[in-house]
């Protein structure tokens, strides 16, 4: 209902909708579940016993939140521009990205490259393995049962729902991230991008294109 309309004046006690017309969201006054309680208990014990501090925990959360797909995009843009780096990335993505200056921690990374003949897509059917140290937190759908179950069974249908229709003759390769390795897809470089700087190229690299559920943006 628009602000200041007659309806508001005649129904002053209608609290189910905000002035913008959207329903109010209920407060989440629900009890903690088992795991939330356990996390708080362990965290408080670690602080109490001097193993870590609240400041250190907050700093670590900040560091996690600061990682974003922009890191992966810089890696892809460099791979598009620098053939030696591209080869190094495919041979040993862990070392290649670490040498580039990214703090990838203990993560072991494999890069897989899309070509006109091959499209790669990454999933973790067992949980939600994702190259967080390079791409940040995974999108919620990546952890959904639907994405995990369907991607290994009908990847082309899943791709179509993401708006990706592959040319006939392109093979799909699904990577089920079952164990110690994490995966990044190097999407195909879009046409008409010759001579672009790495910085400009990186703008074309979307998060989904590095999971394999999307393509790089065209120009």
């Amino acid at each position: 209902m628009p602000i200041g309309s007659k309806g508001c004046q005649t129904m002053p006690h209608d609290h189910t909708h905000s002035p913008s017309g959207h329903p109010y969201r209920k407060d989440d006054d629900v009890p903690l579940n088992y795991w939330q309680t356990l996390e708080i208990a362990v965290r408080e014990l670690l602080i109490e016993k001097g193993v870590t501090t609240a400041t250190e925990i907050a700093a670590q959360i900040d560091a996690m939140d600061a990682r974003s797909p922009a890191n992966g995009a810089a890696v892809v843009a460099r791979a598009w521009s620098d053939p030696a780096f591209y080869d190094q990335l495919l041979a040993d993505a862990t070392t290649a990205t670490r040498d580039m200056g990214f703090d990838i921690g203990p993560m072991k990374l494999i890069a897989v490259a899309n070509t006109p003949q091959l499209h790669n897509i990454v999933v973790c059917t067992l949980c939600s393995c994702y190259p967080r140290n390079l791409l940040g937190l995974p999108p919620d759908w990546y952890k959904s049962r639907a994405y995990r179950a369907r991607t290994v069974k009908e990847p082309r249908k899943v791709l179509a729902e993401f708006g990706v229709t592959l040319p006939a003759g392109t093979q799909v390769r699904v990577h089920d991230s079952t164990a110690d390795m994490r995966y990044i897809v190097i999407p195909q470089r879009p046409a008409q991008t010759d001579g672009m700087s790495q910085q400009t190229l990186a703008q074309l690299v979307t998060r989904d294109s590095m999971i394999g559920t999307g393509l790089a943006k065209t120009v």
Partner: protein
Amino acid sequence: MVRLQVTEWQSGAEVRVKHMMPPGHIRTPSYLRGKTGTIERVLGPFPNPEDLAYGHKAPALPLLRVTFSMREVWGDTAEQPDDTLEAEIYAHWLERVSDDAT
């Protein structure tokens, strides 16, 4: 269980995922059990997560990236039989498929 040597595994070799259903924390997806594929590359050794999950001493095992065809994994219901799937499987879950096997 027989401890397998890293040298027994090489890319290009044909392997079958053992068809077993043990309880506990397992990193071999059930949809791949009993399926035959080809080693794409040899990784590791990595500590066995099936032991790590329970705080046990975890022996380091070779980890193999295995390529399967969708035909092999899903049979007649495959969306596109020539598409492929790759997964990481620990050595103790794999058996060699010998050339003369029937």
